[in-house]
């Protein structure tokens, strides 16, 4: 069981209010992703939940019980650190068994659980190696193994994939998702990468400067961003924002349109292609549109437009409208 409830949780380091006050409910079994730019307080929030930092005020409940002042070990949570934090002088087997040993579990049960975790994570052949003799992906798996043997109420991941290369990252992303599907344990996952957030999450929490900007399912955030920050942060490439006369036509201070919602061909907007990237499956164009500014366009397939060409564009999807305070209309 792993329902986690934060009420008015505040954290300051000296003078600085890193987290000015957060209310959040994480349901049992959910895969929740905290996403936001670097330095917005994601790790701090995760560490507050883990118990590695003390809250300045507010309460944290785990499974309905107040855990605000419990030490980390008593919260029943397991954490996977960005640096993996494996114990370098212990073998993989000992690393994975460490939490069990600390819990005073008997040796036979320890071995059984380690073997089982190693099998799930494809580590059976590496159990007698030291972390120093493993590749990045294998170390990552050991860190996850150390977390799952304890059968915690919830897993906490702090940017676990940021030290891996791109190909491995996609693989591990899927493995973690599959792990969640088979364990059905609550997972809280911190990342600054919105692609990871979109692909893995049941529920995304968008953070900005220690505040929650929006909470919702991935497509909910994509389709109905509540404000300019979320609109700009979710989606890749970034949403185009247009102000001035064009926005006024839609009765808004700012309008936003995603690059994939602009069609190349006939249309009301005309401009010069500045940069064009052709990936085969997609083409990305940066177009300096007369009277509007630069728009990023993502067109499916191959588009024959190159630097210096004049092309016409048309909106072909939802136009998001925002008021003067940046809130969606």
């Amino acid at each position: 069981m792993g329902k986690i409830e934060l009420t008015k949780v505040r954290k300051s380091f000296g003078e600085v209010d890193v987290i000015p006050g957060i209310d959040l409910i994480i349901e049992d079994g959910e895969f929740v992703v905290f996403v936001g730019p670097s330095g917005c307080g994601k790790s701090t929030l995760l560490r507050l939940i883990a118990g590695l930092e003390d809250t300045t005020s507010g309460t944290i409940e785990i499974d309905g019980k107040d855990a605000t002042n419990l030490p980390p070990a008593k919260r029943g949570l397991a954490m996977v650190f960005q640096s993996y934090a494996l114990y370098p002088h212990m073998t993989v087997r000992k690393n994975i068994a460490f939490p069990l040993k600390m819990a005073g579990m008997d040796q036979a049960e320890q071995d059984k659980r380690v073997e089982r975790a190693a099998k799930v994570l494809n580590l059976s052949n590496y159990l007698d190696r030291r972390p120093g003799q493993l590749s990045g992906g294998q170390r990552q798996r050991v860190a996850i193994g150390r977390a799952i043997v304890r059968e915690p109420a919830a897993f906490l991941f702090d940017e676990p994939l940021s030290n891996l290369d791109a190909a491995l990252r996609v693989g591990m992303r899927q493995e973690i998702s599959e792990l969640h599907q088979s364990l059905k344990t609550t997972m809280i996952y911190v990342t600054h990468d919105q692609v990871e957030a979109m692909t893995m999450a049941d529920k995304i929490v968008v953070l900005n400067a220690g505040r929650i900007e929006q909470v919702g399912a991935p497509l909910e955030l994509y389709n109905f961003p509540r404000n300019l920050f979320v609109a700009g942060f979710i989606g890749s490439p970034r949403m185009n924002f247009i102000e001035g006369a064009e926005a006024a036509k839609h009765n808004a201070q700012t309008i936003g349109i995603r690059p994939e919602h602009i069609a190349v061909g006939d249309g009301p907007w005309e401009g010069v292609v500045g940069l064009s990237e052709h990936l085969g499956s997609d083409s990305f164009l940066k177009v300096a549109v007369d009277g509007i500014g630069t728009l990023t366009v993502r067109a499916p397939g191959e588009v024959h437009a190159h630097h210096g060409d004049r092309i016409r564009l048309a909106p072909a999807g939802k136009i998001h409208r925002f008021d003067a305070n940046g809130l969606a209309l």
Partner: protein
Amino acid sequence: MSTHSSRLAARLMVAPSVALLLVWMIVPLAMTLYYSFRLYRLISPDRTGWTGFTNYVWFFQSPDFWLAMGNTLVLVGGVLVITVTLGILIALLIDQPIKGQGVLRILVIAPFFVMPPVAASILENLFMHPQNGLFAAVSMALGYEPILFLQDYPMSSVIGIVSWEWLPFATLILLTSLQSLSSEQLEAAEMDGAGAFSRLRYIILPHMTRAITVVILIQTIFLLGIFGEIFTTTQGGPGSASTTLPYMIFKQAIAAKDIGRAAAGGIIAVILANIVAYFLMRGLGRNLDN
């Protein structure tokens, strides 16, 4: 650094210092070895000549010799145990984030900069002195007789003095090692349910083995030759109770003015040092490679 010419160049450039070090080491050693087989007393300089193993035999038959050997090892072992244990504890303590950490660290390191005879005098006269010493004052304040440190506990006193001098060195090396331990590892252990003692036992100490090994090896080298502290305090006494091998050699060379015997003692000390080094390296050497 792996082409033929670069390796050759490297060897050529290292050669002069290697040669110098070799001469530096070999010449005194050879001379000591030479004198150890000679009859050579400064009191009777005309009577010289080869004496075979007489000088060595004198040492081995001297009633003080085995005592001095034992004292030497007790001194080294005692100081190692005290400095490593206390060094770890102090390092753990001053690694905590507190106000005035920088000043505190300098204070902890300071005794290392005091010269050995001065350090010994400070401790002897300001702390251990039966009339003026701090310890005596404390004893009397509590209604006890002052302890006659140098008289009743000569070896323990010397060990205490030498430990006071070497503790900063041990602390410094151990503190550096402690600071290189990633805090995430400790936090991971904390989340894994390890209490303070388990973290020390399973995470911190294993991380520090290398540094502990370095401290033990370096200190052993220096401690085997401890002399000044004994000279300024107990003078090897009472009787021969705190005589170590270096002090015995000194007594032969300076008091008895017998260069031949002193040289033989020197060679015995070299052999002892090598035996100690052999066992240390066998026991601890593998901690050094990664």
